[in-house]
């Protein structure tokens, strides 16, 4: 058994090493650091973005003038005072806000539709319509109503989280809970007792399982909204103030983008691990 685990870890390490080696080989053969930045550039871009070791090139006569890799995008970002950790924190805060508001909203709607057949009949068709609209397609329309503010970045995230949270809560109540509810009712449970002690725990695994989907959707929507219209956050770091047609064009630097993507993957993984741990803790009774 232990030999098996060690074998797997070895294979994983081989896989990571092989792809890293292949990347470096490609970077070396192509030798176009502006397209495929070698590993050294990635490390430098990372160091610059966390705010260490970068000197603004406008200071002439600098003593340690070793060949520093600096591109337009890094320069633009550093000049603007953008750091990787601050951008990540801002995006994470937007994601957290979206979850904080969107999850209760979506879960309540899902519970309501799952609990009452009548509510389901009336609300489900409307929900299907609402769910079909990609949240970020609404961003400009929201902006017209609420002006250029934080609201039009947060509303699509809340919308995305809420619409994804409805379905697990709905199925949790409708499918999972019904047999427990029938049994509890037969034993005379009703009102608050029924809701708090039977319905909520029975639906919890499904609802918490949906949490992981909501998390992924929230990150995607946050990054997309920041790419479209925001002056900060990871999405803005990735596009470096370029791309979106109405802004001035900056030559984008793959080193910054790759560092940003890796940071996002790390943050997404960490939050998912947190969600899984929370789920395991809250639904310990399921396995018991």
């Amino acid at each position, binding site marked *: 058994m232990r030999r098996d685990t060690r074998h797997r870890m070895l294979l994983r390490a081989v896989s990571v090493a092989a792809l890293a080696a292949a990347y470096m080989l490609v970077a070396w053969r192509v030798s176009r650091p502006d397209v495929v930045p070698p590993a050294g550039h990635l490390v430098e871009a990372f160091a610059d973005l966390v705010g260490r070791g970068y000197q603004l090139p406008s200071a002439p006569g600098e003593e340690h003038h070793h060949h520093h890799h600096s591109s337009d995008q890094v320069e633009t970002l550093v000049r603007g005072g953008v750091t990787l950790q601050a951008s990540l924190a801002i995006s994470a805060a937007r994601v957290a806000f979206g979850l904080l508001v969107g999850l209760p909203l979506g879960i309540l709607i899902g519970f309501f539709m799952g609990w009452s057949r009548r509510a389901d009949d009336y609300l489900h068709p409307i929900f299907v319509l609402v769910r*079909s609209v990609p949240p970020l397609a609404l961003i400009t329309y929201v902006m017209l109503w609420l002006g250029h503010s934080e609201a039009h970045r947060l509303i699509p995230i809340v919308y995305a989280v809420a619409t994804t949270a409805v379905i697990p809560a709905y199925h949790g109540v409708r499918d999972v809970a019904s047999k427990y509810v029938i049994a509890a009712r037969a034993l005379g449970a009703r009102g608050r007792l029924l809701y708090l002690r039977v319905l909520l725990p029975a639906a919890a695994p499904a609802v918490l399982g949906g949490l992981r989907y909501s998390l992924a959707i929230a990150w995607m929507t946050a990054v997309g909204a920041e790419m479209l219209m925001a002056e900060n956050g990871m999405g803005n770091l990735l596009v470096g103030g370029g791309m979106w047609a109405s802004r001035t064009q900056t030559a984008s630097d793959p080193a910054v983008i790759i560092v940003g*993507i890796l940071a996002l993957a790390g943050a997404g*993984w960490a939050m998912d691990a947190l969600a899984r741990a929370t789920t395991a803790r809250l639904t310990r009774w399921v396995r018991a």
Partner: protein
Amino acid sequence: MTAVRIRRAAFALILLAALYGVAAWIGQGRLPDRVWMGAHYVENVQLLPTFPSLFEEAGFLLESGILPASAAVSLLRVLAGLLLGSTVGILVGLATGRASRAESLADPWVSALRFTPALALLPLFVAWFGYGEISKVLLIASGVAVVTLLGAHQGVRSVPRVYLEAAASLGARGAFAFRKIVLPLAFPAIFASLRVAIALAWVTIVVAELIDARMPSLGYLLALSGAYPRVPTMLVSIGTVGLLVLVSDLLALLLHARATRWMGRAA
């Protein structure tokens, strides 16, 4: 019973439309038509366009061929991305589900890609492949591939070992057992993941087209109507996207029901 449900659904939708119509009618002349757009004011904005102006706009967009052409461009991108991504994803997922060696090899990359928001890859693809079709199709494909890979993997893994052992004791093994036992049993999970992937593909393409708004497409139409801003066009485009998402989801459900009919259960 179903008649009651249909009647209630129709009632809810008609009520919603009527409420919107009344709100737009009351709002006419009362809602501000001067809107602050970040840098300047814009005049003559209909925040809540009335039904006649929406229908007029939809008629114009349809008649001039702008809307069908845009929808066709976006639809083709989604289809190309879905085809490429799901082929790769399902094949790799079947392999990782079946062989633990393949799983160990693929695992680091799958988990890295899985937690990357699909849209974050767009700037990288643009830097590598330029603006245009390749980066958009690849963007959709990478998101779709991850989702379908996980679905196929889970589907293969959820096949009860007893089935395989029973088949093996009857002499079925290797490719034959895979084709006759694993594939059919993994099919529902693969299809469920494909349904998620279709929704993801639409979200991705519309935003990718919004961010890189150059060619005629639904995202471009949205970006254009946002720049002027022209709310009727905006709402008609949003409605078109929603309709396409809805129709593709229904098609996927229908296919799913059809393909799993042999299981003898409601889809």
